[in-house]
């Protein structure tokens, strides 16, 4: 045997040995067959240490692939992840229908309020139509502040109010002739559901549904957070809503330069007034799912959809807050209370409702005419009484919170 042949034999042997060693080191596949899909998947071979994403999405039922996509039988990371939807975030609005949709999930009927995806995609936090319309109007690119453009083109899911518009075209800064509008498009589209978060831990959030429902605020976004929640703390809302202001003269976003150290000072911007309940509670304790996720209409301004005020819970001098008694075991309020179990709501309970008919399911009227409210994220119980019958002298036509703050604002 020639020396070269022997060297080739040695190389071949080493290659075979390396292949055998590589096979030996590879972990044994961990199989899971979720009841929802009935198809085996091997994702848990590497991801067994991930916490369950939520009690409503147990891995034994959903598995991983139903939501994330990916190659369910692959054991190589690159191959397994190659067809994942939205990278690590399947709730990104570009892919959310495939990930979270389905008539039994989040793309169901209007009647059952299971149409989250349709409402969110038309919601103003996703379209950013309000800011775009205001800027284009302010700088003379359109004659009024009615929305014409959104982050993406979309038709209304429903039109139940004359304030809504039927469709939006995609906003393209390159097509704008106004320099400030062009600059706005290039530098200020930083706070909507399809854009990545601004740098900094307080801004840390994902896109799509996870922007709100995955609590990433004040974390390192590079580290995965495998959690979905309906009990969003105010810090998650603050990743967009309390981080600073736009400077229209320079057409740029100016982050807050203070570093609030507690809930009281973190809650609102330094110049804002508010009452104690506002910083004691979390945003989602008062603001409804339609306010946050949209109601299917395409609006031109946040003012068209954000409507809950102090009087929603406290009533006015001459009217008690609106309430209704739960009589149907299929009531949406019970479904919500089940998913965020801070209140033992049941048929027969009387809860506060908004003037649009949305239930504040974390409230309940008590026997003595007062009310209780449970914090969704904190679980804290607060009791409160109506304005009617109190010493309050609020004028009937002055029901915006700024009027309440004239007497009730706290000092920082």
């Amino acid at each position, binding site marked *: 045997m020639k020396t070269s*042949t*022997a060297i080739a*034999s040695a190389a071949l*042997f080493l290659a*075979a040995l390396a292949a055998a060693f590589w096979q030996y080191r590879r972990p044994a596949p961990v199989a899971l067959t979720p*009841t929802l899909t009935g198809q085996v998947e091997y994702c848990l071979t590497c991801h067994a240490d991930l916490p369950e994403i939520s009690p*409503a999405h147990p891995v034994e039922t959903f598995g991983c692939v139903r939501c994330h996509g990916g190659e369910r039988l692959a054991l190589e990371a690159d191959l397994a992840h190659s067809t994942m939807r939205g990278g690590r975030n399947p709730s990104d609005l570009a892919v959310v229908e495939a990930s979270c949709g389905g008539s*039994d999930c989040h793309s169901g009927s209007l009647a*059952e309020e299971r149409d989250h995806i349709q409402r969110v995609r038309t919601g103003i936090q996703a379209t950013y139509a309000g800011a775009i319309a205001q800027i284009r109007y302010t700088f003379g690119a359109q004659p009024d502040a009615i929305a014409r453009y959104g982050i993406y083109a979309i038709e209304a899911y429903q039109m139940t109010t004359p304030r809504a518009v039927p469709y939006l075209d995609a906003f393209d800064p390159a097509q704008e002739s106004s320099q400030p509008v062009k600059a706005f498009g290039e530098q200020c589209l930083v706070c909507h559901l399809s854009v990545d978060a601004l740098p900094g831990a307080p801004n840390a959030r994902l896109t799509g549904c996870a922007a709100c429902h995955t609590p990433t605020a004040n974390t390192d976004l590079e580290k995965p957070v495998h959690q979905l929640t309906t009990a969003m703390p105010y810090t998650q809302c603050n990743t967009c809503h309390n981080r600073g202001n736009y400077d229209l003269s320079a057409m740029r976003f100016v982050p807050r330069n203070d570093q609030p150290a507690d809930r009281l000072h973190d809650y609102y911007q330094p110049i804002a007034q508010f009452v104690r309940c506002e910083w004691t509670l979390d945003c989602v304790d008062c603001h409804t799912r339609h306010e946050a996720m949209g109601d299917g209409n395409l609006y031109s301004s946040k003012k068209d959809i954000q409507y809950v005020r102090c009087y929603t819970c406290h009533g006015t001098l001459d009217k008690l807050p609106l309430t209704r008694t739960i009589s149907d075991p*299929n009531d949406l309020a019970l479904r919500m209370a089940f998913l965020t179990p801070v209140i033992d709501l049941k048929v027969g309970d009387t809860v506060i409702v908004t003037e649009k008919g949305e239930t504040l399911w974390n409230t309940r009227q008590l026997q003595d005419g007062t009310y209780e409210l449970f914090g969704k994220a904190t679980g804290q119980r607060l009791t409160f009484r109506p304005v009617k019958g109190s010493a309050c002298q609020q004028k009937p036509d002055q029901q915006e919170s700024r009027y309440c703050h004239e007497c009730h604002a706290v000092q920082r």
Partner: protein
Amino acid sequence: MPSNVKQFNPGSSVTRRDFIALAGKSLLTLTGLLSLGGLARFLSFQSEPAQPSEFNLGPASDYPPGSRTPIPQAQAVLINQDGKFEAISLVCTHLGCVVNSVETGYACPCHGSRFDQDGNVLNGPAKQPLQKLVLEETPDGGLTVHTK
């Protein structure tokens, strides 16, 4: 020994050429064995066995009249109602979570659907009752439940 053949080890009869030939053949043999091992592993691969859909529950006499016996391995409950056997799946008809037994019947821990003792929907989101499973009585008095 020819004068131009170097000895591998002075004093030994094994020449360097012999050693290289032996080592080469040995490595080739080992490579072949490793490859055969890999081939055997490849050929002996068995995909994940299908989920069982048939469960032997033992003698019917083990389940007295009036009993409701959970069958965890089948995710079902076996009911003996005055000698008449019935098996109900405990897989929620909404999205497939396994329901828990509660005072009023069954409750889904995932999304809150509730069912009565017979599996009828008390509240959604599930719209369909819990599935009645096929129950087979064998000639020797045994019971077998089929989950598909």
